[in-house]
């Protein structure tokens, strides 16, 4: 190198200035902005629901009945039938969808291997998660309500169809994560495949599966469209899920929201707050289960 001087050259290690830096900064700020853009509507909804709904919430509202007609002012009657309906319809749907869904996930992860049928079924389950919930309602209407009438159970069937692919998908992901060394340890002791699955793989995966189920339940509890054509619009509490019309919180919110009466709006907010509270509790429970479970796996 010609002209090498005795002193070391100045090395500029600062950030590249100019347009490159600006573009980079701008990009970063845009990314942060997108997160902010998400917090704003979320915050608005939550704040509004809590502010407007809190005043309606009292014991009579949550457990009393019957459900008043939409023109009635606030304070008349209660949404007890709807709360009961949501709980019982969602519970029956869960009892149906979870065993079937977990077994299907077991098929996909333990027995399916790489064969084409398992890949196809897995693909179909994914596609099924995207089927609009109202289609499930129309489906159950066609094959059940037209023959057996409106009932809470019909709603459970529709919600079950909705929950099934969700439970399959989340359970499958968890089962796949169970380390193979556990399975091998069980096989080496002479266990049959079903034993290995039920006594070692499932217990190892149970935390993640439960967490996924809780999230699916939260989703199902908030669904309105599947129930629209299946459960009718009862006004009094119906403890028998299998016969007679029923009602549920989301349905109440829907019917109250589409009416211009003040009382209806207040009931709507109260029901919305109740429903959101239920969904949030389920979501937090799911997170707690995941966190607790993580402590027991290596």
């Amino acid at each position: 190198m010609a002209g090498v001087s005795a002193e070391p050259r100045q090395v500029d290690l600062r950030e590249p200035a100019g347009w490159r830096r600006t573009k980079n900064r701008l990009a970063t700020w845009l990314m942060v902005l997108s997160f902010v853009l998400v917090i704003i509507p979320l915050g608005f909804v939550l704040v509004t629901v809590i502010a407007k709904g809190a005043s309606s919430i009292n014991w009579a509202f949550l457990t009393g009945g019957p459900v008043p007609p939409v023109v009635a002012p606030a304070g008349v009657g209660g949404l007890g039938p709807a709360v009961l309906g949501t709980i019982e319809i969602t519970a029956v749907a869960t009892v149906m969808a979870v065993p079937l869904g977990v077994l299907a996930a077991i098929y996909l992860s333990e027995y399916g291997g790489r064969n084409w049928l398992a890949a196809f079924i897995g693909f179909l389950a994914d596609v099924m998660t995207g089927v609009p919930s109202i289609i499930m309602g129309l489906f159950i209407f066609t094959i059940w309500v037209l023959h057996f009438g409106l009932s809470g159970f019909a709603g459970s069937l529709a919600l079950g169809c909705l929950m099934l692919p969700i439970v399959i998908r989340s359970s499958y992901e968890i089962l796949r994560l169970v380390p193979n060394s556990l399975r091998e340890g069980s096989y080496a002791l002479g266990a049959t495949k079903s034993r290995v699955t039920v006594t070692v793989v499932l217990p190892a995966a149970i935390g993640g599966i439960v967490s996924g189920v809780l999230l699916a339940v939260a989703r199902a509890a908030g669904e309105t469209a599947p129930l629209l054509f299946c459960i009718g619009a009862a006004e009094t509490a119906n403890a028998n899920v299998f016969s007679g019309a029923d009602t549920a919180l989301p349905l109440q919110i829907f019917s109250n929201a589409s009416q211009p009466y003040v009382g209806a709006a207040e009931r709507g907010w109260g029901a919305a707050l109740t429903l959101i509270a239920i969904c949030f509790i389920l979501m937090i429970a799911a997170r707690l289960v995941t966190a607790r479970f993580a402590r027991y796996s290596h």
Partner: protein
Amino acid sequence: MENPEQNTLAGLEAIPESATRQNVALPEPAAIAEGERAAQPAAGTGVPIFEVNGTSIYYGSFRAVTNVSLTIYEHQITAFIGPSGCGKTTVLRTLNRMNDLVVGARVEGDVSYRGENLYARNVSAIAVRRRIGMVFQKPNPFPKSIYDNVAYGPRINGIRNKSELNEIVERSLRQAALWDEVKNRLGNSALGLSGGQAQRLCIARTLAVEPDVVLMDEPASALDPIATGAIEDLMKEIKDKYTIVIVTHNMQQATRVSDRTAFFSVLINPESDTRTGTLVEYAPTERLFGDPQDDRTKAYVTGRMG
């Protein structure tokens, strides 16, 4: 197979070098009285447990191991040694049909256990594994309590009686030299054990079903030297009740614990650039290390290869 004339030292020396691919073992003993367990035999004699004859193992169309023939004897510790990729673990896993779990795995040739073909069509892998247990390289305790880990095997075999299970758990943990350390916390999760303890738990778990053979795939490679020593002592203690086959990459370990050693190596096919494992030499341990017959064995045990 072998003929009885070779049951002399002179007969041994007559075996040509080209026989290295064959079983260099001494021939079968005379008939053993039925039901009587053989006393600790002189090296090389004893009841054959496994007879492997001209066996090759494939994964799909890839030949992982070729033309292995050896006999494993009862109440001995047999070690498989060799460089990585030589197929020693593959051969081990063939002995209890664990390779069945790998898609596309295929065994050609004879593998028999106490005279019965392990890979016959009507042989149940489940039944095989109840008699031939396995301890893995990385300890894999179930996420259950210590008690439930050891009781798992007996339970799936139908034992439900609480006192019987208690007895089995204690006996197995004692055999595994773990009882004193865990007897007061049998209900604790097994995941809280140290590496060495966890591996002894896995051994206890394997012993709880009272197998005939215990296969060990590098059981101490994930452990520190003290834990390794404990495992090796354990092996020597239980040898008179079980037959042990161990894969190890640690030659000193092989000399410390094993009665017979099989040295595997890798054949490299220059055209297809594939590596296939093969058995090179199989002999009583002192002979294999002290006076190896094959050049490859010599190179490996003196440290020039692998």
